[in-house]
């Protein structure tokens, strides 16, 4: 196993910024940990291609909070949907379990009680049901669409196939 005399690991993000992080934090990133373990010699700098510096900032924030036992205070509310998705994919790349679960929950919270159209738009998914198939599946699960807080299906009438 490559050993480093210092306790800091250097990570270089896609936008060229170098972050020096504690070994313990690097350990929570399984992808990074695997790179360290596979290297024969000392690694000076580990490139993390799919991660940007604003992601690293948040990751470091989360790490600090969780070390202090305050991981519940970590919030991604200020991120818009795009940014949250970005962040989720970055954390997924780095293979960080805890933070990944926090972020998937955050995405789920944003999708909760939203309409089918909203969810499709959010994920960029196209409807591949025929009108009959869609009608059948809607009818079967009709009760779920009747909640007061669920957004109305805006594009229902516009649906065309």
């Amino acid at each position, binding site marked *: 196993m490559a050993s480093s005399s210092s306790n800091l690991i250097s990570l270089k993000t896609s936008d060229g910024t170098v972050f020096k992080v504690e070994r313990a934090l690097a350990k929570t990133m399984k*992808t990074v940990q695997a790179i360290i373990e596979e290297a024969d010699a000392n690694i000076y700098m580990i490139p993390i*291609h*799919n991660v940007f510096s604003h992601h690293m900032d948040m990751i470091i924030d989360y790490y600090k909070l969780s070390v202090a036992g305050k991981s519940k205070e970590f919030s991604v509310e200020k991120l818009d*949907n*795009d940014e949250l*998705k*970005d962040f*989720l*994919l970055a954390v*997924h*790349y780095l293979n960080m379990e805890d933070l*990944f*679960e926090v972020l*998937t*929950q955050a*995405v*789920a*919270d944003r*999708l*909760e*009680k*939203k*309409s*089918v159209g909203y*969810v*499709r*738009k*959010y*994920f*960029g*998914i*196209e*409807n*591949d*049901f025929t009108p009959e198939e*869609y009608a059948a*599946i*809607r*009818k*079967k*699960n*009709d*009760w*779920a*669409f009747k*909640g*007061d807080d*669920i957004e109305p299906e805006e594009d229902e009438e516009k649906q*065309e*196939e």
Partner: protein
Amino acid sequence: MKRKKHSIPSPRVSQRSNKAKGKVVDELCPYFDNIPSHITVQILLQLPIESLLICKCVCKMWKTLISEPHFAKLHFERRPSLMIRTKDHRVSRTLYLLECQPEKFEIGTDNHVKLQPFKLPLRDANSKFGEKQNKIKNKSKCPYIASKPDLDKFGIVNSCNGLLCLCDPSNGNPLVICNPVTGEFIRLPEATTTPTLNTTRVTREQRLTALGFLPKTNEYKVIKMLVRYGKRVNDRESVILEINTLGTPSWRNVEADSQVSIPLLKYPTCVNGALHWIGFEGGFAGRPRSILCFCLESERFQSFPSPPQVFGNHNNTTRGNSKITMGELKGFLYICDSTFFTDVTMWVMNDYGNGESWTKLYNIDPLVSSFGSPDPSPYLSHYGLCFPIKHFEEGAAVLLYHPCNWFIYYEPEKYGFKVFQIHGPDPNFVEIIPHIPSLISLKDVVKGDNIEVLNIHSRCAKFKLHEENEALSLSQPIDGDLESLRSLFYYDSD
């Protein structure tokens, strides 16, 4: 959805043409649709049932993901909740889901939140659908059908893995297993006639039924028991025990161990592949004395260690006053004792089968001691029932149900107390069923063609009962501070 594991697609914002529509649409995030399905699954697992059913309509891939039995199993048990049903003179085919998520319960003092309704099948449905089916011409109208409680109402026995066991309320005979969330249900095989015994020596009988799950074989079993007690104290009971493994077309007679004496049993709870009941001594309004366990694998009764501290206390209670319930949460057996308002306690068996592992979680006397007076108003003498909501590792929470349709949600660390009230047309009698909604499909349970899986939504979509026009809603009449709670219980509230 194909995507290389560590690759990142190109720039964030791009324009994409939508072939079908022929116009250019700004995509929010062009590569999010290339998200690997396992990330999608992780997100979907965190959604509540309602949203999942909406997501099923998003596209075929998602429908498949969500419909997989494995997904249902993973999703299950993330959100404990309760079902409520009005217990009055009507058929009461509607169950309302009360989800216990206090974070979402900041509804303020003026709002009423409607509870999500689910339908149960009708007991005597066949006679209705025969005649009425042909008379429906105008589909946009929803005709009302007559229903009779004594014919149509089901009693609810217990809930296991998101499935409800329904029975004939007059004799406790189990009739139907259903999943209220998916609307599926199956009818249990017809009862074989029980042999008549010499009734001169029988003083009373007990009919018992319960639904349980055996993880080892992934089977659900319904047990049905008729216990007849003789007149004399030393008379052995006669027990007729029948079991139906869901998916098989008949009931099997099983020999019951005559060594095990069977008291009055209540609160069937399935944990770890076995059914458990609290045994009450002294008949109908007796005192809790023991826990009886029926192992679903060996199909035998076994003794089971009960928390002596709890049951021992009841020596001094007057009959009929014991308010004790048993339940299951995340594979652990819980006992909640709300008999003594000075000491509402919750116990969990940390190590299944080990009598010494019964641990007291907490008493809720901070609530009660604040009321001070040793002779409080009559409302306080019965807290009603107590249900575990959150596992202790997650902060432990309890729901107290007060007979006047107040719910007190108590989570000591985070939320303290929150008080809710149920409103409805005639909500004074409400039945509570601990239930965890799940997407588990009866088709996977039943495996094979022996039993037909029916669906409420397809059969009853055209019909409504008059009672379905009404709905139950939840309000939060006061902020949950102790001062307000005190005023609530001291004065007659409306």
